[in-house]
């Protein structure tokens, strides 16, 4: 699936997007932590730190590591705090 980074995750990752294969959100986060070490600060095994959140296809925000993913999904990783 396609992964987009926004805000701090984008800055830490040094890229805005990439393609990753994973069957669940937890698997995806584990892969990201391995592939992009600067993101490890925000990922505990298979979960995001509470200050960050994942979103599926611009619709649903998800946090459960067992959330199933399919190839066509777009997963957005961003700060959970939208305060301005």
């Amino acid at each position, binding site marked *: 699936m396609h992964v987009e980074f926004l805000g701090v995750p984008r800055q830490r990752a040094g890229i805005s997007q990439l393609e990753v294969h994973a069957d669940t959100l937890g698997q995806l986060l584990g892969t990201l932590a391995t592939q992009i070490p600067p993101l490890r600060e925000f990922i505990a095994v298979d979960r995001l*730190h509470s*200050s960050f959140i994942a979103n599926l296809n611009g*619709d649903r925000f998800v946090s*459960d590591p067992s959330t199933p993913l399919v190839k066509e999904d777009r997963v957005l990783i961003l*700060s959970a*705090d939208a*305060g*301005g």
Partner: protein
Amino acid sequence: MPFGYHGRYLRIDVSTGASEYVPLSDTVLRQYLGGSGLGVKLLLDEGAAIMDPLAPEAPLVFAFSPLVGSPLTTSAKFAVVSKSPLTGRINDSLASSGFAIAGKRCGCDAIVIAGRAAELSVLVIDDTSVRIEPAAEYRGATCQDTESGLKARLGANYRVASIGPAGENLVRYATISHDGRHAGRGGSGAVLGAKNIKAIALRGTRRAEWANPGELTTISKSLSKRSFGPATAKYRELGTATNLLTFNRFGALPTRNFQSGTFDEAASLSHEQLSTTRSKTRESCVSCTIGCEHIYSLGSGGVRVEYESLFALGSLCGVSDPEAVLRASKRCDELGLDTISTGGTIAFAMECVERGWIDEPWLTFGSGDALLRAIDSIGSRRGIGDLLAEGSRRVAHAIGHNSIAFAPQVKGLEIPGYEPRALQTMALGFAVGARGADHNRSGAYEVDFSDKVDRRNLTLDAVRHAIDTEDKAALMDSMIICKFLRGVFNDFHDETAEMLRSITGWDVTADELRETAKRIVSAKRQFNLLAGWTPAEDTLPDRFLNTPLPNDPEASLSRELLNSLVAEYHRQRGW
């Protein structure tokens, strides 16, 4: 008198120069804490709800808090509380830095100002001595020039809060500025301007004692350490400007007076783009370890860039030229104008020009020159600026054509940068907000950016979450601590109760603080009821209830749904 307080407020009548200290009981302090809560309580006692906010007798409260002066990070904050000349409802706006510490060192927990000076004046509080000095030479001066001029005149150890030309000219959304920051929303600058007070300069020597200094030091160190972690990374590393592209991605970036939730040229205003073309520095308020202020170079100086200013003066007005938007933001800072209400009112006027209802053909979406010209005209109340200085609701009533349907305001306060149709818990927060559409008194957007709700298809279950964020904000604004810290707490109520115990010596618990928050929210409602609030005010403009977002048909909010959310909110509040 509990620890952490002086147990009194200073009341000054600037008509006569008379001042007195008025005792504050333990009970009142424990029930309302400080900041917004204490300010509202004092206004209720003063009978301010039924006064004209620009009349001499209308009081303006500067309220400090038990945490001010402590080593707790982000605690150097003060609240400015009055009846709003923009909304006719309660207004509490907060600002930060040395003014809060110096004010509390004047030996009081709040300063209440009433009356009207005979000429433009500066109110000087030197410890416990109060005097009023002429300030004619600062007429028309910017907030920054006034502050630096008064420090040169009185002494560098004075801390100054001032109004710009907008406050002098009674622009209904004028700010009170201190150290580059603003008590921004709702027009407290006009209230001070109506009193002929250009600035308040103060210094003091009196410290409040802490009940348990050792415990307070331990708590403060822990909090500071956590404030360097992931929970504040967004504010520390990028600033709030990073919201722009995120909100644009979710179709929640208000554009061209809320006609769209996406701005095609958003990238040109993003922090990534600004960072590639401008140098940037970071600053902090006094006593803050986060350092959320990102100052971008502009000409020979710099300008603080915040999301709310970028959205209001950028996408909302269709302006994508970063130079124009940054200059506009800086001009608002100089004139003492709330950037959200300024941008909202100008964007509304731009749409009215498009529809042929305002005959100012130069005032067009996308024009940076028009934006800057409009801002200057508002600050001086010249030409069309005299009308725009009244805010979008009064402009709509003046021009008719049912333009109120798309005036971007609730209770008269212009809507901040959260598209209500795309963020529907926030829509509820805006509708029921005591001071109008506001993202600082309701953090309901947090709920929209979570897995607790479907942000575009809300159910009544969202209401309790919206109430939680409103209660939490009331507590943070009264204790006072910065909302940018909220992510660092493991248990917010337990930890803030622990802070308050170490400072005051009270046996306060988390449950007591939950009740305190509800009491403060209810006090604001009581103020509004006395001021004439009716249930019909708890709504959104028709535009948001009739029209889905054009780029996102799922982002649709019906009047029936909003009405049922508001009714459920009132039910759960017990109102």
